[in-house]
């Protein structure tokens, strides 16, 4: 069953100061079914992240449609959905994971994961139990749970990011270069975790520099070059 359909997506950035238009991606078409994992590969600057950001609506698409099958709204075009609808979907249905960690100051790893649930109206007790379960699942050592993540290694940060995104059990998970800057051992750990995450309920799209690591995980792989999928 289809969870996401991207049709003829295009994004241009216009920079007022030099008066310059940058064409990032164009003619992007893809269909993601429930339980499927799509991998997108390509060189830096090819437009990979822009596609994910358009789906997450961190970027405003210039052209095209992004139809998402929401549990609450049914089929909804993420390009024209209201800001309140997008906020709802981000809190309850769509997870976005990048290699960067954006944590409030003075927030421990456990509290960071709990906050994702508290925002979707869970009570404190349930949030704490689910957060602990998720941190264990992603193999973040227990002695780090009550520490501030500013000092965490790249792999620990990524696992925390994944726990933060997955604790709300998203239907759609967007992974923006989650293995960038990780050593091979940690990359393998991430691959194993992603393999475990593949299930009937979650559709995933991931961007990777090194697709070889994702062999066996991706159901479809798209290669992007100069802003468009290469055949």
């Amino acid at each position, binding site marked *: 069953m289809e969870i996401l359909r991207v049709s003829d997506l295009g994004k241009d950035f216009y920079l*007022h100061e030099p008066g310059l238009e940058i064409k990032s991606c164009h003619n992007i078409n893809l269909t993601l079914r429930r339980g499927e994992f799509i991998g997108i590969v390509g060189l830096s600057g090819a437009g990979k992240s822009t596609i994910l950001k358009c789906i997450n609506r961190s970027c405003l698409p210039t052209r095209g449609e992004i139809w998402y099958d929401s549990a609450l709204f049914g089929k909804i075009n993420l390009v024209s959905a209201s*800001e309140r609808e997008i906020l*709802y979907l981000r*809190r309850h249905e769509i997870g976005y994971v990048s290699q960067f960690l954006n944590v409030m100051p003075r927030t421990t790893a456990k509290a960071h994961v709990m906050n994702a649930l508290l925002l979707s*109206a869970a009570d404190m007790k349930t949030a704490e139990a689910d957060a602990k379960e998720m941190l264990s699942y992603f193999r973040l050592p227990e002695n780090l749970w009550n520490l501030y993540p500013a000092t965490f290694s790249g792999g620990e940060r990524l696992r925390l990011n994944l726990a933060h995104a997955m604790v709300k059990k998203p239907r759609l998970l967007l992974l923006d270069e989650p293995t960038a800057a990780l050593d091979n051992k940690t990359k393998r750990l991430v691959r194993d975790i992603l393999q475990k995450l593949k299930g009937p309920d979650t559709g995933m799209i991931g961007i990777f520099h090194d697709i070889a690591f994702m062999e066996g995980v991706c159901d479809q792989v798209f290669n992007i070059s100069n802003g468009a999928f290469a055949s």
Partner: protein
Amino acid sequence: MCLNETPVLQVRNFTLRYGSGCPACGERLEKNRCALCGSVWAANDLSLDVYPGEVLGIVGESGSGKTTLMRSLYFDFTPTFGLALLRDYQEGRKNIWEASAADRRMIKNRIMGMVYQNPILGLRMNHSTASNIAEKLIAAGSRNAGQMTERARGLLESVEIMTSRMGEAPRNFSGGMQQRVQISKALANNPALLLLDEVTTGLDLSVQARVLDLIRKIKAEYGISILLVSHDLAVVRMLADRTIVMLDGKIAESGLTDQILEDPQHAYTQQLVHSLI
């Protein structure tokens, strides 16, 4: 979150002009100043909605009208024209700027809480911290001294002020502590809407982090809607769900906070984002 929810606050066409104006006032503006008569349009036709439980950030350069909006909502300034409806006042059917003096006091004491950039405006510096909070409670009808003391104690604990100092006047406190006392005072009567005007400006980093953490907790635990004015894009990035960018008294751009920062559309917003250190 229910999506056919009623906004906690709706502002429509809010305009505040300083100066007597002229027949063609506002038709030819140099930034926000009328080229014909010199009147200043501090806020010019602003419209916005604040939804239950959300933080709406407002950013913009000095003089863009951010504080004018906040202080007008708290009745410190009188708008030239415009409409502001509060869900919890007359079920959102009456313009608060046309409310009677008694209703305005009720709105300030029960429905809205305000934290000023300058604590002198929000606190009685020579009265005890507990009295500052009690003043709000009394205004909302409390009369039991014991209950008020307990409430003040609870509020001060939640903003991490030692309750052993609740008898001291805020003039003895640091800037960060004064801001936190202001926040506890603003929360005294469980308002539906909190107005935060540059609450972290001028605070050192550790105190700033403590205040940000406190605002995040207020949002998560009390579900209060917050209108947050800040110069600091990092503060807005961390706290605001949606953001409005103001320029010369007008809204230049609005959107989801991460979209404003990742993909700004307006020339001024691009300049602002590119100035981020």
